[in-house]
């Protein structure tokens, strides 16, 4: 019983960590973007203020059960996937290490990919019931784009799975620990393909047509306010954290303590952000076909490299 309680406390701690890191990153990104655009920009803690505001707001209207459950699904997906991602290297020597080994031995990479989609579907359902056409349009765009970046992403992962005969994230980290080489160097093509996919996942420019504000009134979230938006926002932050951590775990050797984790994830995060700031927006079909060109090529190279 005590064991389970510790687990639950660990899970809550992980969630809080992810929430804080994700929110902070979001704020920093807003700041950086503004600076690049020659604006002053909000303070980096603006996201926390927003979240607090939304949380304390009263939800006045709703559009039915699915409208409630959509954000809940989203949250389930982000939290549960967080449980399966090793935040720190398992068995590391920091005193808080054991807090973050939630359920990492109970699932593998393929499981993670699927549980991460769960949220999108829930979100899509919630947005669908609102009846706002902009929401649905945003959803279809998002799903289409997902089909686009999923291919290079899977190719990259498959090439690594082939190289190390495992699908477990923990094993990937252990491999990097033992050999001392990050997988981004062991199979650079996989890393490039994965990076492209990561950019697609973050929905920053040029892949930000999903919530294109001028067209769609911010797309899927447009009909949500108050607690709904708070849930969506926080799960989005957690999701960013999950994706970054996963990427770091797989390609960049994981993190032995929180400082390293923050440095690595932040560095990684800057790639889509900085690229996004200076690039224009793709239409959906352009985005999809973009992923089916160079990223696909690099993915295939990665597999080829792995086979040879």
């Amino acid at each position, binding site marked *: 019983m005590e064991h389970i309680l510790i687990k639950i406390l660990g899970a809550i701690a992980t969630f809080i960590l992810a929430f804080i890191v994700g929110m902070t990153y979001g704020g920093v990104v807003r700041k950086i973007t503004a600076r690049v655009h020659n604006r002053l920009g909000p303070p980096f803690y603006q996201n926390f203020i927003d979240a607090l505001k939304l949380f304390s707001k*009263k939800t*006045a*209207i*709703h*559009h*039915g*059960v*699915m409208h409630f459950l959509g*954000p*809940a*699904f989203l*949250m*389930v997906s982000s*939290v*549960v996937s967080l449980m399966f991602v090793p935040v720190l290297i398992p068995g590391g020597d920091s005193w808080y290490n054991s807090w973050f080994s939630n*359920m990492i*031995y*109970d*699932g*593998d990479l*393929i*499981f993670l990919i*699927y*549980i991460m*989609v*769960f949220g999108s*579907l829930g979100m899509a*359902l919630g947005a*669908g*019931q*609102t*009846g*706002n*056409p902009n929401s*649905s*349009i945003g959803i*279809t*765009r998002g*799903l*289409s784009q997902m*089909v686009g970046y*999923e*291919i290079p992403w*899977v190719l990259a992962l*498959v*090439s690594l*799975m*082939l190289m190390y005969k495992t*699908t*477990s994230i923990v094993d990937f980290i252990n491999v990097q620990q033992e050999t001392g080489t990050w997988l981004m160097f062991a199979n650079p093509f996989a890393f490039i393909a994965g990076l492209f996919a990561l950019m697609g996942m973050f929905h920053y420019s040029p892949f930000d047509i999903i919530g294109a504000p001028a067209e769609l*009134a911010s797309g899927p979230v447009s*009909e949500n306010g108050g*607690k709904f938006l708070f*849930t969506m926002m926080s799960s989005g932050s957690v999701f960013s954290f999950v994706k970054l951590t996963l990427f770091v775990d797989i390609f960049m050797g994981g993190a032995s303590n929180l400082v390293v984790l923050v440095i690595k994830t932040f560095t990684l995060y800057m790639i889509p952000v900085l690229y996004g700031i200076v690039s224009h927006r793709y*239409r*959906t*079909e352009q985005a*999809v*076909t973009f992923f*089916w060109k160079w990223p696909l090529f690099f993915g295939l190279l990665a597999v080829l490299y792995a086979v040879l």
Partner: protein
Amino acid sequence: MLTLILVIFLGGAILTWLGRKINPLLGDLLFLVSVILPATMFVMNIKVGDTIAQHTLLGIDLVWGLSPLAHLFSLVVVGLGVMLSIYSISYMRGKEKVGMYYFSFILSIMAMLGILVSRDWISFFIFWEIMTWSSYLMVILNGKKVQSIGIKYFVFSALGAYSMLMALVIINSQLGSFMLSDTFNNFQHLSPANQILIPVLLLVAFGVKSAVMPLHIWAPDAYSNSPMGYTAVFSGALSKMGVYGLVLVIISMTTQLPAGSLIRIIVAWLGGFTAAAATLWAITQDDGKKLLAWSSIGQLGYIVTGVAIGTPLAMLAAMFLVVVHALFKGSLFMAVGAIEKQTGTTDFKEVNGLIRKMPVTFISSLLSIIALAGIPPLAGFVSKWMLYEALIQNHNYLLVVLLFFASTAAFLYAYKFLHGYFLGQEEPEWAHVKEAPMSMTIPMLLLALTTFVLGTWPQLLFNSIDSAMQYLGYDATNGKLWTDSVLFSQWGDKVALQPVLYAIIAVFLFFAIFLYFKGRKATRYVTTKDISTSGEIPKEWENLTFKVNFMQPFERAIEPFLKRQIEKYYLGFGKGMEALFDFTRRIYTGNGQTYAIYAIVFLALLLIFRVSLFG
């Protein structure tokens, strides 16, 4: 006993048909009895065994028994059959040709069980053909596009059936026996050419029914044109007969061949392409029936790939998906049928916003769609996970990417399905729609809930699959690939399903309570017209329904693919043949004198070639 069961089915079919003529209620009653009674007898009395009944016709022994593999498939047939028979009563009420529907329904259930109990090729073929024509009657039952869709279905079925017939007479001439077991045991005694020819012919035969790629074009039309109460059987059980055959051929025949691995790789890739292409086509459909039909083809593609790869994990995955697909696709087709029944249409462009009118249908559809998409914690995930692991470990890396692509793209049509019917604007046009009657909703909900249970406790099914696989010559998988509800891959990776479920439920409950119960008192429900677009409240007359060109951006991306339809080539071939036939029949000019000239020329030709003819 087995003979008696089949006779009850047959007699029941005829009696139901006659009873329906006398009194509709009598017909309904007889229908239920003649499905459920023999089905129950089958489940209760027929145990796995080699020879349960034997008849001799035309000097050929017809041997009936039940193998563990067949037993697994018979679960699907019986389960779906009983559920759908209950469903059909309400579904068919007030429609035309109910008698013929009942007749064909019972007959195809009988034929499927017959196929499964057949231990020799002849009874296999007989039941196969009965299944074909009884399902054919269903395909054209609504009288729409009878000549194109119906004939297409029958031609492809006949192609498959005749391939099988050809294979089995060759088998008989070479091995002197029609028994399945003799065929598999003495496969090595065949000549090398026949060792290739026979599996290929049989693969064509079973490939047609399981809608593998170049042979699939009948399926979308046939599935969507049948009455929905039957389409569930069609896609859930009937197509699985093709899978059953494929399992027999691939596991029991090609493994004995040097070239077998090549055949299996080809079949696996065909399955993969089927899955991908069918998924893309499903995305472009605007009719729920068609969408599900294409989706069925796609899912069958996964199954075929799994069977063709044939490693224990892949086989486990494929067999699991056979059952699970029957469950969720059955439920989905029933849902579409319910919608068709209540609204009169199945077109996404016409009907939407049914979530509040048909909540039970929505919930079962939602569960089934989650299972379909392979999202944990529902059963679809189990088979998907095992399949991917199996493919990766078998070094089919590109194939796994193809399947990943297919299942990711499947989210698009999964969402399109849910959005098309249940979400979006609630039009006043559909305000009167009520939930379907209990006899329709309960079967579909039951099937959907079963996928839920199997998603966390797959061992309930794994035991049956395990004995089926041991019958096929695999080692026991219990403890190696799964223990209780934990799945293992051969590399030692694992997924523990129960913690997943508990985690999901815990988080879900927390946030659902947070959002719903905390906010419920304060919030009020508003209609879907009451929304904000860019901060403005739309007017009543504004059209906010988003249903035309739903997936347009994606369709644009896959446009080059959509241009290349296999069906066009078939149609071109068919047209060419008909033109050729038309040309040929002009030999009969209608002029008696020409015929006389033919006769003389024929005589002259024979006289000229008499030496080469008679030496």
